[in-house]
């Protein structure tokens, strides 16, 4: 029995270790309060349409669904629609997929459910990932696009928001592994700002948080409704349970 317990402990211990090594750059926490902030969601929509929609589609999301985040149909038409789209259409991409493959080496993924798909058990939500990913681009001249990323090393996408954040370089240092002196680890040691961006670091974090909030909303537009309805359903079931509990007790009182 002791042996079994020991090997079990070993199994879980080793496993935790292994995943810690694989895990890579830890994800920052997405500020979830943005999800209930209509102004943030609307700003996120604006950023999304301006910076993401040129290459990425969101082909399950209809423009007029954005009424759910407090925009009127007219506002959507005037601010978010380009040239020929209609307000009932989905956010299709104008980029030709074959061209995209030529330019970037990979077809930019559809972003409708990107926030849902990028979550990982034990690491964080998809929003956490996106919030980290969009804030950890750095200049890397060895890459074809000139950009690299900490959360997604060797990513094919260039830094779409670089005008806002400015250009940064990443410093790395070689650290000796504490357990194995023969190994050295290539460890991230901070960013250096090369050129300033249109926004300060704090402003940029806010912008990215707004954008991620919009993508999180877009992944499941019904989520606010779901939670609102859920509260009422649980209240109803709670009350019903009490009544049925007493009903049951009333019947069983006579059973001896």
């Amino acid at each position, binding site marked *: 029995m002791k042996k079994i317990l020991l090997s079990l402990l070993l*199994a879980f211990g080793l496993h935790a270790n292994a995943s810690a090594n694989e895990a890579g750059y830890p994800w920052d926490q997405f500020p979830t309060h943005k999800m209930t902030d209509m102004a943030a969601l609307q700003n996120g929509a604006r950023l999304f349409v301006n910076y993401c929609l040129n290459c990425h589609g969101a082909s399950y*999301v*209809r423009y007029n669904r954005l009424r759910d985040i407090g925009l009127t149909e007219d506002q959507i038409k005037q601010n978010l629609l380009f040239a020929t789209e209609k307000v009932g259409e989905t956010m299709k991409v104008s980029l030709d997929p074959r061209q995209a493959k030529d330019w970037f080496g990979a077809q930019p993924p559809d972003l409708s459910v990107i926030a849902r*798909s990028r979550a990982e058990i034990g690491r964080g939500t998809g929003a956490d990932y996106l919030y980290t990913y969009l804030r950890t681009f750095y200049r890397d001249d060895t890459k074809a696009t000139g950009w690299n990323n900490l959360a997604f090393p060797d990513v094919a996408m260039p830094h779409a928001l670089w005008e806002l954040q400015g250009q940064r370089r990443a410093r790395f240092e070689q650290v000796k592994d504490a357990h194995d002196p023969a190994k050295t680890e290539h460890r991230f040691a901070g960013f250096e700002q090369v050129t300033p961006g249109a926004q300060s670091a704090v402003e940029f974090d806010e912008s990215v948080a707004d954008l991620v909030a919009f993508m999180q909303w877009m992944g*499941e537009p019904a989520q606010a409704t779901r939670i609102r309805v859920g509260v009422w*359903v649980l209240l109803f079931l709670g009350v019903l*349970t009490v009544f049925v509990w007493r009903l049951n007790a009333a019947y069983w*009182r006579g*059973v001896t």
Partner: protein
Amino acid sequence: MAEFHQVPADASTGQKLLNWVDNRFPFTKLWNDQWGKYYAPKNFNVWYIFGSLAMLVLVMQILTGIFLTMHYKPDASLAFASVEYIMRDVPWGWLVRYMHSTGASAFFIVVYLHMFRGLIYGSYRKPRELIWIFGCGIFLCLMAEAFMGYLLPWGQMSYWGAQVIVNLFAAVPFVGEDLSLLIRGDYVVGDATLNRFFSFHVIAVPLVLLGLVVAHLIALHEVGSNNPDGIDIKKNLGPDGHPLDGIPSHPYYTTHDMFGACVFLFIFSAVVFFAPEGGGYFLEYNNYIEANPLKTPAHIAPVWYFTPFYSMLRATTDLMVNVLAIILAVAAVLGILRGNFRATGKIVLAVGAIVAVALLKTFDAKFWGVVVMGGAVVILFFLPWLDRSPVRSIRYRPDWHKFVYGALVFFFLVLGYLGSQPPSAAGNYVSQIGTLVYFGFFLLMPWWSRIGTFKPVPDRVTFSAH
């Protein structure tokens, strides 16, 4: 033909209608036999709620399934988008879909607990063998339903999960390749696979499942329910001919089950409305990426309810096959030396063991993995004949038996955990131990279930008034 009943002229319209029906169809009789005047033991505890909850979930899955089928497109190029269409554009579609996806996990939770109840109180023992066998059939159907239903959203996990499992059939000697081709309808999982899985998921398997549920209930109401004491309540009949320890299901278990259903629905709704992804276990995150036959995910994990069996599959390596061969050989030698067999019996045993060991070493370990995985479910069917204990309920078995059951549960959970994780060397050893414990529990049951000091079983059930 039964005699034709008359109701008094001043009877209510309802009574007249009921009488009209009863003279043509045994409506009242069916109701009374199956529920209304079905006397169930009055000492049911909380473990006895999961049968009716399974029924509730079944109804919910069928109803939500009907509405999903109205909007879903079983076409490899449209399936993924049609699920998102249900989630976004179909009124309340998100609720129906979440109820169905959460319902799948809830079904397994409820059924696993229901089976465990049967296990600890000996509900499969004579005369309830057929109830248990029908139940195992339901469990098999449920696994088929879940497996084929999981392909339908056409996400990466749907696709690659199906690919991995269908490929397993290719490991069957001689016919494997043709068999897996027959299941897929193509050389890889594709549109043809999606269409046939859809057909099986929405009509073929549910039909069999419903038939088995009816058989399960008819058999149960024929022989009567077991109870936590494992006592035959029909031995103590009252003057009215009904069991003294029994109570009519209606209204007593009607209200009981209503209360259970309310508590269940509260928990179920909490998941549906506040955590529909179940932390990535009920709806896997990777499944929000559309299926891509050219891109294999780094880590393919089945949904949580299959992971214990998946662990056993992965545990069956060449090493494990050697261990199994040694165990088989030792068992055969012990049987020949210690067992009370005649000379011919001993020869049969020796030859059988040699052939079995030869087969183990001939075929690929992958094939034996499939056999182990399938065997882990099939072995349940034989439980009524494996258990040789003189009492039904765990309450009157020797105390140390509880540890044996505990070991089974513990290792089943550990296997489930390991099956959801990427393979690791240490994890594999643990799942090999777990696999041996799982099979040891059942295969050695004829031996260990007889040993120990059993406690006296009372004549009447233990019941304290509420």
